């Protein structure tokens, strides 16, 4: 699994989201490549305009809101 957390790199939301994703990974015991993307042109390539967003294996799974741990785990399915 390849997870990217997209952010605009200016508020703490994206950082918070990263932490939650890490926690969700350790809770479920899954392995994933986790990446934070703040390069705006790359963020735009996903068609995302509201951050933070979560991209799993190249697909935008969530955007515009910090998800909590349960919600992130639900995305892994």
């Amino acid at each position, binding site marked *: 699994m390849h997870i990217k957390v997209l952010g605009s790199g*200016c508020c703490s939301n994206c950082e918070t989201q990263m932490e939650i994703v890490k926690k969700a990974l350790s809770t479920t015991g899954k392995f994933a490549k986790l990446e934070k993307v703040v390069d*705006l*042109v790359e963020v735009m390539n996903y*068609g*995302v*305009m509201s951050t933070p967003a979560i991209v799993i294996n190249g697909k*935008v799974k969530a955007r515009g809101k910090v998800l909590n741990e349960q919600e992130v785990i639900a995305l892994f399915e």
Partner: protein
Amino acid sequence: MWLSSVDFFVYDFLALHGSFADSLHFFIYDFVKILTLILVIIYVISFIQTYIKTETLRDFIRGKSQFVGNLCAAIFGILTPFCSCSSIPLFLGFSQARIPRSATFSFLISSPMNNEIAIAILFATFGWKIALLYTLFGLITAVVGGYIVAKVSTDEDILISVPYMKHGGKVHFEKLPFFKRVNSAWQSALKVIKDIYLYVIAGIFIGSVIHGFVPADFIAKYAGADNPFAVLIAVIAGIPMYSGAATVAPLIEPLTSKGMLMGTALSFMMAVVALSLPEAMILKKVMSWRLICLFFSIVGVGIILVGYLFNIIL
């Protein structure tokens, strides 16, 4: 009903009298009223937000006429809680979808100005008429301002260019069942309240200080009806001040009760919330200083006009 409960609590239950009791009364009464209304309004807006996202707006505006685009973007600005951070992805996303720049600027003007918290507080303190007028003028400023800013800007003013969005850009949205939306709206409303309640307290506190300690003729003398430049001064004073709507909105009532005209007070509030230095710094990532200055001056002039108009009709 709430008023009489606070009456009972302060004057009968605590058996307090005198000016301290009055301030306490004012504080409790205003605080609970404002916070409750904010909670209700934020809840409604969060609920609507589970249906409408920025991407939805982008897909909707594409290919629409300029006026419709500006208007939709301005209205959408009411629905989004403004975080300056969100303005950049939005700006780029719109230009990526080749939406006319005017709509983007309408949004950038409308979003901080037609802040849902400001509207909620105006509604709580002055009733629906003032809240509606404020919103209406905010929308007009956003639509017209967006149009003018787009007219005077050139392609050189935009510093980052993003490739045109291929695949039509339609994004897939997860379908949420109704009860989940209700729940998620509640979560975000609570989060917003948690984020802003201290600012509201600060605002109400400063408001009660103005109520109690600023002499009645002080504000009237400098920013009252006799001074034709009052609005101008209020806006110029407001631009460098940076504070959220949650702090500045509770000040409007005390300011007007001390002799400031309503339009002057509202212009001041619009200037504080809509134009700020941190926002300029963030916008610098994507646009030239020339355009930022133009953007700020056009919005500033718009706010001043709205202030005078308000003073005339109220």
